[in-house]
């Protein structure tokens, strides 16, 4: 059947003998070097990120008024770094689940002990005074403290509630509206579909932050200036293009068969969307929900511009205000507020991290 001349069979015999041991040694070396280089690189680039956060937490729990104690940072790092390395080694060397847990428990116990021993006496919760003492500035700064109620910080919980409200409402609206629009863009043929998608990108080119004055005027005309609703709606509009883009990618990836079978089973496309397609894009919804929430949680410039009264203060304004320097910065309290401000983001982020990694700009492969 196949009668061509085949070069490979003939040349194969003349191949030089292979030094397999040398190859194996080289492979071993390459593999090791690669692992070392990779980990070294990743550790090196990650330290600059971890360190400031660690510093923040350290200061929040240790600093005395006005003076950041750097020694505490380095001493706790001296415990923290070996502990992390030990955890890593335990995880890598453990042969069984039981060994792993025992190892981790042992390392944790030693680390806690060392931590208490080295920095324990320096730790205190005093910087978190703002949580239970709304007039904390008066307490912290004794001179002003002679007249209570003089400093007008809004209650942190009030700001906290406002931020939760803004971020939460914004997330709910963005997720709903973006899912609807993205589904339609992904799955329906309609005139102007292409230009609609293009305008999403064009919208992203609008410098929202420089349009604050027109937005200010518009919010005033529709009566939403100095209300949380105004800020929420502006933020929603701002986040929508990105959320639609991402959600469209997720919808693109849903197999058509699923939807087709729903249609043949008697569902309308709207019903198919709700009952069959939406559950398929759960990860996408989680991802944009997290990003949108964080966006609302951190918003600073809009709330600063559109919320005129401090009954509408958010955590970002609170944070920015606390670190204001007119009366002297108290690093301890600022850090404590920072930690308090960071915690909700972190919790959300830890819970959703694996979904965030599945974000793709779908549509085409290759």
């Amino acid at each position, binding site marked *: 059947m196949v009668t061509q001349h085949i070069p490979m069979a003939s040349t194969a015999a003349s191949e030089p003998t292979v030094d397999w041991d040398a190859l194996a040694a080289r492979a071993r070396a390459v593999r090791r070097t690669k692992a070392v280089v990779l980990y070294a690189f990743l550790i090196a680039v990650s330290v600059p990120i971890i360190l400031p956060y660690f510093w923040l937490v350290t200061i929040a729990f240790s600093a005395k*008024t*006005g003076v950041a104690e750097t020694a505490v940072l380095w001493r706790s790092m001296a415990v923290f770094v070996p502990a992390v390395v030990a955890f890593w080694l335990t995880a890598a060397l453990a042969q069984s689940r039981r060994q792993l847990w025992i190892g981790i428990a042992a390392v944790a116990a030693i680390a806690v002990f060392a931590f208490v021993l080295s920095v324990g006496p320096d730790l205190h919760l005093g910087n978190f005074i703002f949580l239970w003492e709304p007039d904390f*500035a008066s307490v912290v*700064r*004794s*001179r*002003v403290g*002679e*007249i209570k*109620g*003089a*400093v*007008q*910080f*809004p209650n942190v919980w009030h700001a906290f509630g406002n931020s939760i409200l803004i971020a939460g409402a914004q997330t709910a609206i963005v997720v709903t509206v973006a899912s609807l629009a993205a589904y339609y863009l992904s799955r329906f043929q309609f005139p102007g579909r292409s230009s609609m998608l293009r305008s999403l990108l064009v919208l992203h080119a609008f410098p929202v932050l420089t349009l604050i004055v027109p937005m*200010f*005027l518009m919010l*005033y005309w529709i009566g939403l*200036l*100095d209300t949380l609703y105004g800020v929420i709606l502006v933020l929603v509009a701002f986040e929508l293009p990105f959320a639609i883009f991402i959600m469209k990618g997720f919808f693109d990836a849903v197999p058509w068969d699923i939807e087709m079978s729903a249609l043949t089973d008697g569902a309308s496309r709207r019903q198919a969307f709700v009952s069959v397609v939406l559950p398929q894009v759960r990860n996408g919804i989680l991802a944009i929900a997290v990003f949108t929430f964080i966006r609302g949680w951190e918003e600073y410039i809009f709330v*600063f*511009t559109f*919320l*005129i*009264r*401090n009954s509408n*203060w958010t955590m970002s*304004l609170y944070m*920015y*205000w606390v670190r*204001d*320097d*007119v*009366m*002297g*910065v108290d*690093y301890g309290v600022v850090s404590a507020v920072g930690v308090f401000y960071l915690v909700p983001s972190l919790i959300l982020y830890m819970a959703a991290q694996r979904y965030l990694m599945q974000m793709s700009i779908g549509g085409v492969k290759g």
Partner: protein
Amino acid sequence: MIHWKIGTAALLCAALAGGSAAFLAATPLFAQETVKLELWSRQDPSGPLRPGNVIKAAERLNKELEAEGSPKRVEVAVRESPAKGFDDDALQLLKVFGIGEGPDIFIAAHEWICAFQEDGFVLKLDDYITKYPQHFGTIFPTLWPSAKCPDGTYAIPQDAEARMFFYNKKLLREAGYDAAFVDAMPERALSGDLTMDEVLEIAKQVVDKTKAQYGVLHRPNKGPDYIMVFQAYGSDFVDPATGKLLLERDKLTAAFGWFERGVKERVIPANNTAMEFDALRKEFYTGNAAFWMYGIWDLGSVAFPTYGLPQDEKAFFADWGWIAGPAPQKGGSPVTLTHPIVYAIAADTKEPELAVRLLGHASAADLNTDHAVTTTHLGIKPEQLEDPRYAKAWPLAKATELLKITKFLPNNSQFGDLNGIIYAAIQGIESGRLTAEKAADFVIEEASSTLEDVTVK
């Protein structure tokens, strides 16, 4: 005293007249009417009693109204703005007034008042001030210019302070200056004998001969203090004849030259404007800098509580002190700057009379003293000087000496913008991006292209 009685009698008469008029008009006598007055205040820990005193004043005014038999009662609602500084706050408030959502009363930095006046947002007060001498009659006459626009008075000074060069006597002595020289510096500055360049020279000695790292430090953001230097070198920024902004290239260059020399001599750090406010203070109060150009309130709010400087007058002056802004050359005039915050009333408030009376009570000597002694600001009335609390706060009494030579920022509606340009130029000089000449050019160029009616000489 007699004065006071006549006032009271007049008030009583007026109240009676008002009361009977109301009665005659057949309005139910005891139906109270609550007048809600909105007060716009920047959320500001450096002066929490500025709005606080207005709230307290409402109680007094209401008692007074009750005594008069007036059915009206005042209620103050504070609108606190989250703006970062007085400039941001003023711009925000202008917008809010622009859309007709303005408050009845507001607190502002004095140099902004004419911006409100130009757009007709603020009430002219001259008549009221004469009408209520019991409230406003004793306010230091020197403070009133800060509340004036070309055609009249539009605000009521709320406080005053003094800006100066603090200095570390210990460091100066370490650098080889004898105690007598060091202690005489305030006197010499006031008499015009100490010059701006001598300050740089002393600072240089300190940097060279002691462990201290810095010579002169100043605030790291836009603000009034460094304008002192420009005033020392003769820039007043406003043409007294026309009230328009005035930029004089030579005088600007001379002032910028001082900064340039300071940086060149490594006395002013090149990164002064990049440092955190608190870091700067820390450098000075922990003995790492010779001079700190700032205001008197820093003692009460930071130096004593945070860095533990001696609160006893004698102990303080043993190692620390301050001088007025020195003269540009020997025999010239020294300067100091005060930057009053003012109360003002919206032009469209429904109850201007009540608003004025409210502010009158808020300006009462005892309330103002509360503000003064808790935040180390200077009072506005001579009565306050007799208050034992005020007397106890020796930095205030001491700083009041400087008021004799004090200057203000010009009350020009565009000065806030100009100040921003000047600050940028200082940053440009210190970070080595501009020379003194270039900085002057920059200020003139920027100001002429973005501001209106700028006279350049």
